[in-house]
């Protein structure tokens, strides 16, 4: 049964704004973000929790939106890539991605940026190995990761 029966309403706080969304027990956060709220920055790359393209922050920590049930996210602060910036001002992580040419096709980019943002909050000056480990749950097929790693290391200011 994949129909719409049994829908309940869930209050989600996304990018600082309260949203009341319809969500039965099986509805994922990714479905709510993309299909209901039009927040398409989170990408559906595998819907299986492997590629990391749907990464969002839950109370500042990266989670897979495709594996997170929307109803379970109530009461938590959800941040998507759309909520990182105010106006056209890029965050230091985003700016470092530009400077280092760390964006290619862009599909993995929102997940990478959010994972990197969470890493730098926890570990403000990660070294190359720490960045590679932190990003290892986000697949990129274009870049070979070199420039993404360089960007995150530079955003942290470590050498």
């Amino acid at each position, binding site marked *: 049964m994949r129909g719409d029966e049994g829908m309940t309403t869930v209050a989600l706080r996304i990018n600082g704004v309260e949203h009341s969304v319809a969500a039965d027990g099986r509805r994922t956060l990714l479905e709510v973000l993309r299909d209901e709220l039009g927040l398409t920055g989170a990408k559906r790359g595998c819907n299986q929790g492997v590629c990391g393209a749907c990464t969002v922050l839950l109370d500042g920590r990266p989670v897979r939106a495709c594996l997170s049930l929307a109803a379970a996210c109530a009461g938590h602060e959800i941040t998507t890539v759309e909520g990182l910036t105010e106006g056209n001002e890029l965050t230091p992580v985003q700016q470092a991605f530009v400077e280092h040419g760390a964006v290619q*096709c*862009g599909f993995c980019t929102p997940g990478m940026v959010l994972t990197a943002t969470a890493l730098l909050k926890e570990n403000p000056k990660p070294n190359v190995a720490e960045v590679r480990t932190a990003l290892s749950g986000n697949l990129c097929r274009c870049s070979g990761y070199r420039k993404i790693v360089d960007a995150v290391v530079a955003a942290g200011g470590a050498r």
Partner: protein
Amino acid sequence: MGRFGAGQPMRRVEDQRFLTGTGRYTSDIDLPDQAAATVVRSPFGNARILGIDTEAARLAPGVLGVFTAADLDADGVGDIPVAARLTSRDGSPMRTPRRPVLADGRVAHVGEAVAFVVAETIAAARDAADLVMVDYDPLPAVTDGTAALEPGAPPIWDEVPGNQAFDWETGDAGAVAAAFATAARTVAVDLVNNRVIPTAMEPRSALADYDDKADRLTLYTGTQNAHSLRDWLCDLLPLPPERLRVVAPDVGGGFGMRIFLYPEHVLVLWAARRLRRPVKWVGDRSEAFLADTHGRDHRTHAEMAVDAEGRFLALRVATVANLGAYVSQMGAFIPTLAGSGMLTGVYRIPALSVRVRGAITNTAPVDAYRGAGRPEAAYAIERLADVAARELGLAPDELRRRNFIPPEAMPYRTAGGKTYDSGEFERNMRDAMARADWAGFPARRAEAAARGRWRGIGMSTYIEACGGGPDEGATIRLEADGTAVVLIGTQSTGQGHETAYAQMAADALGLPIDRVRVVQGDTDRVSDGHGTGGSRSLPVGGAATAAAADALIASARPHAARALGVPEAALDFAAGAFRVRDSNRFVALEELARQAGGLSAAARFRPPAATYPNGCHVCEVEIDPETGAVSVVRYTVVDDVGVVLNPLLLAGQVHGGTAQGIGQALLEGAVYDETGQLLTGSLIDYALPRADDLPSFDFATNEVPCRTNPLGVKGAGEAGSIGAPPAVINAVVDALAHLGIRHVDMPATPQRVWHIIRSAQDKAAA
């Protein structure tokens, strides 16, 4: 700074939207009143379809239509075309099965499209798809190319006797046989070029919109070539070209896989017209694994005749190419014409003979994947070079040095019929060895051994051919408001074309780059194009853009002469303005555009030849003897891709290609079981390189300008995936050579390496 802004690491104009989540890929687009579609796919590798019962599905809630081959047939929809055809060595034409859009009485691979379900919501479509009853009569399957060609193999198609689509040859078999008969020695290798699955991060998707009043369809889809796709679709639907618009929005990676026409393109268009409302299909990751084109899958026996000093005399290569269940659009071209001419690599090899047999199997169709034929060629010759060096007791660089085509021999015509215009192969190798500290390797090996790790070093000195083929046109419009638009028929799938062409046009016209916009991927806005593939965008599209900029300046010259009251010959153009020679009087180009209400110019470039990017990769690995795990610990690339336009964009191409090549060598491999089930059908089972699998590549260029295009550029998109596999495997074999191991097949997974180590140790103990 070079002409057209060459050499500048301009930051990308695309990044803002991708970094803020406002990129628009096909699946991000929704249209009012849109219906959702899903595809019913074959669960069998080989089966007859005895019947399809769609009644229960049709009656399910929210269902708008359930379609099968019979519906398409009744409407005159054609089959998926074969674009490249060959003649076999006996003069017979290539044998190809019919490839209908939806299976018609037969399926020949798991994941083949059988029925198409359209409903109000995707949930309703999926529920209804479960109700489509297909009566299959399973047949024995064969998934291995060599096995498919053996007598007694399960026959797949009546039209393809012995499962052999073609048996093709090229070169001079007589000259090769003569060289082998008298050579001081010969060396041989048997190689598997493993089947890989492209796995662009954005799954394929398609959205069709039907305009009732105009009787016109629009297809939004991530393609590498909107115009070619439109033309193929119009042939097939059938439809006059003016009735179909194809739009490529942001495209999340291509790697060759998105060149082709897929059944879902046809299905959404046909259903949208029939239902008179937009129809959207979004592929999931499983569908990508099952039904995207795959790459490589060659079995090759390669042998070389060598003289007493280690000079190469002749090369003989026999390959079985697994084509999959159908001959894909370029599927016959890739293992034959695309790759065979590059088998002699960067070496003087007087004689070449190649035979390729194309096998039909119960697997997904194989077609162009990053490099498309040239990685297979480079792998064969660069493995053979290393094996020859080992057998002759020469260092790998020394053997290569004895055989390089020297710069002074350029232009050089190879035994494969290619004319290399430029290249300094020994210098690439020397530079790469220096950057990789090749001389310091013995100390690193000893240090690793003390830690219980076996360290190996390997190289490849590769060359490839790209950027030949059809022409490309570019139009530049300088609007009255001083902004410029470049319209071009190539397609970025992540390379950064919006930046590359804007950089060129901005420099030529003397405009800031943020005043130049690039329009691509829309058959209504761009008049024609051949898309992106074979690393052609900069060598061909770039040359056309440069010519269009020159033409625009030339068209403005008479206006400038009138405005300044001087003869045209008294004017020089520089930095965005015409200046009267020996005077301080000038008029800006944008002022002329304002006065003229805009200026526009178009130009075309037809490449007279392919370009030949080349370079040297040096890979260092460490192997854990206990687990067989291989770590790439150091990686160096020195590439000659001719003149470099934007080093930042170039590095992205080279790093990414190299990562894919390392992936093929160590991690990636499509595995089918004997019934045709794909065992590597998810990202859990199919290993893509992750950030912690790769080292930070060291990359440098050796700019030897290409002599066959005006910019001096050579294609760069595929080079990394061509140079990497042999360099990695040469390094792995070097690490294991002390055990008497002379070859390890790709992918060199821990399991495979562990087994090879164990059997070598058992043999030594016996």
